[in-house]
């Protein structure tokens, strides 16, 4: 892999940019790999990357039915934060957030991590109390957050309306090192680094079945034939239930649509991320100037990557009330992704009933921010066969045993 640098730009400028190489090889499947990862989203690619980087396991294939990063990783609103309530969540999200701080250097790929600060508005007394509790929990967890006054909110976000008629702003949970990153670049950066370690990224190839012998995984049937493996990692987000079914087990997961939209680009007007969970809307401004907007999920099982229009209407209604100046903005694009929701709104990073087969799913509406931490934990689980401290509590049996990691109570919407 040729490294990207200021020197490389100067060198290429002098020779008409003919020397750039492809970021990753387009690989065809070999007969057998030590590890196969199904799903080349951020989580699958990061899992593969840390298998190579932290454990020296590089005979790895990442199999993707579409194009890499074309699932939720390329469809999300890129919010990064780690101000969660429960200890296991704070640990893995903060691990991820801290890895994001140096990810561009680590991958030699600009993921445009922008720790611009993130606010979660408290708009009911119940919510205010909840966020105060989270701030206290975060203090114990070593996650830097603070609870700020409405006046401070107004300072940070001049375009906000702090005394709206329905839900005036009572305060906010503020994480100064939360922010955003470029979603595609995260997938591309990991893919390039995986490819450079000799891993095969096999796109346009769908996994159709999981084969096993005597209770142990032996490989996968794909649209390009059978590919053998020693260990299998299923990292397919919205399609987790389908691939788990191929491996012979059922998950506590429902697939629903989550939508997002962006406005026409405007001059810089808001340099923090603002989430308003009571009214179900959140917004940030991209580097291109578009306002990036999202809200809550649709309420029924759906695999079409299309959501219902009334959810967009609700989200915009909430945001126009919070930021009156956006009422005249035109919306440019709207899209949906299929998110995998678990019963306690926390992810699953787990061994499975099938030996040698591991699953990483359930990131639902909020897994972009977790990509580096999740990959780190998944690689450890797959390499050692047992979870490390980051993944230990996120096993799939916690539901049966009543060990929920209940984040649904902590925030109305996740993201």
């Amino acid at each position, binding site marked *: 892999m040729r490294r990207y640098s200021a020197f490389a730009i100067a060198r290429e400028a002098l020779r008409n940019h003919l020397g750039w190489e492809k970021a990753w090889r387009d690989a065809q499947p070999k007969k057998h790999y030590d590890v196969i990862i199904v799903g080349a989203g951020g989580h699958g690619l990061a899992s593969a990357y840390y298998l190579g980087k932290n454990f020296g396991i590089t005979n790895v294939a990442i199999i993707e039915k579409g194009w890499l990063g074309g699932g939720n990783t390329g469809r999300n609103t890129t919010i990064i934060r780690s101000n969660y309530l429960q200890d296991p969540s704070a640990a893995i999200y903060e691990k991820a957030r801290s890895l994001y701080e140096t990810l561009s250097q680590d991958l030699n790929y600009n993921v445009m991590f922008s720790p611009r600060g993130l606010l979660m508005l408290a708009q009911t007394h119940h919510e205010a109390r909840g966020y105060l509790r989270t701030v206290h929990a975060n203090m114990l967890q070593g996650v830097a957050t603070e609870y700020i006054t409405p006046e401070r909110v107004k300072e940070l976000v001049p375009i906000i309306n702090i005394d709206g008629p329905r839900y005036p702003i009572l305060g906010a949970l503020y994480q100064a090192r939360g922010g955003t990153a470029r979603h595609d670049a995260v997938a591309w950066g990991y893919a390039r680094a995986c490819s450079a370690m000799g891993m095969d990224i096999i796109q346009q190839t769908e996994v159709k079945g999981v084969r096993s012998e005597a209770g142990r995984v032996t490989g996968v049937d794909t649209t390009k034939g059978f590919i053998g493996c020693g260990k299998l990692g299923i990292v397919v987000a919205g399609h987790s239930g389908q691939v788990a079914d191929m491996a012979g087990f059922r998950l*506590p997961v429902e697939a629903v649509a989550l939508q997002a939209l962006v406005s026409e680009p405007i001059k810089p007007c808001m340099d923090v991320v603002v989430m308003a969970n009571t009214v179900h809307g959140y917004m940030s401004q991209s580097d291109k100037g578009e306002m990036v907007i999202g809200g809550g999920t649709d309420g*029924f099982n759906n695999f079409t990557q299309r959501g219902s229009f009334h959810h967009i209407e609700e989200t915009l209604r909430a945001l126009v009330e919070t930021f009156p100046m956006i009422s005249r903005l035109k919306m440019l694009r709207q899209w949906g992704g299929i998110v995998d929701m678990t019963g306690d709104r926390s992810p699953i990073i787990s061994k499975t009933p099938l030996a040698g087969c591991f699953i990483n799913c359930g990131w639902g509406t909020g897994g972009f921010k977790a990509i580096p931490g999740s990959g780190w934990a998944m690689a450890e689980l797959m390499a050692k066969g047992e979870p490390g401290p980051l993944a230990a509590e996120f096993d799939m049996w916690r*539901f049966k045993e009543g060990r929920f990691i209940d984040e649904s109570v902590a925030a109305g919407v996740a993201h």
Partner: protein
Amino acid sequence: MLTLECPYCGVTAEETELAPGYEAHLKRFGPGSTDEQFNDYMFARKNPKGVHFERWRHAYGCGKWFLAARCTATLEVFGTYPAQVGAPPEDIIAKIKARRPEWVME
């Protein structure tokens, strides 16, 4: 927008008039059941990509729960029926079979 006909009051309701209730025909388990059975009842979900049976409530209408047969891969609705049944009725099965000949009831 999803529209479903309420089998009680006959109103063709838009999604905004309804409240979703997810998977239908769950087998309930009570005292004396195993952890496994409770887990399956409370958490394990079919979540199929294709034909699905769901609970819906006519929340801003008659207020009653009813059931719907729907395709999660295309958003096609096969039909709705009252909730007081243990399994989808024959006419609903026939409607699904007419549209999805390869489908088999789990």
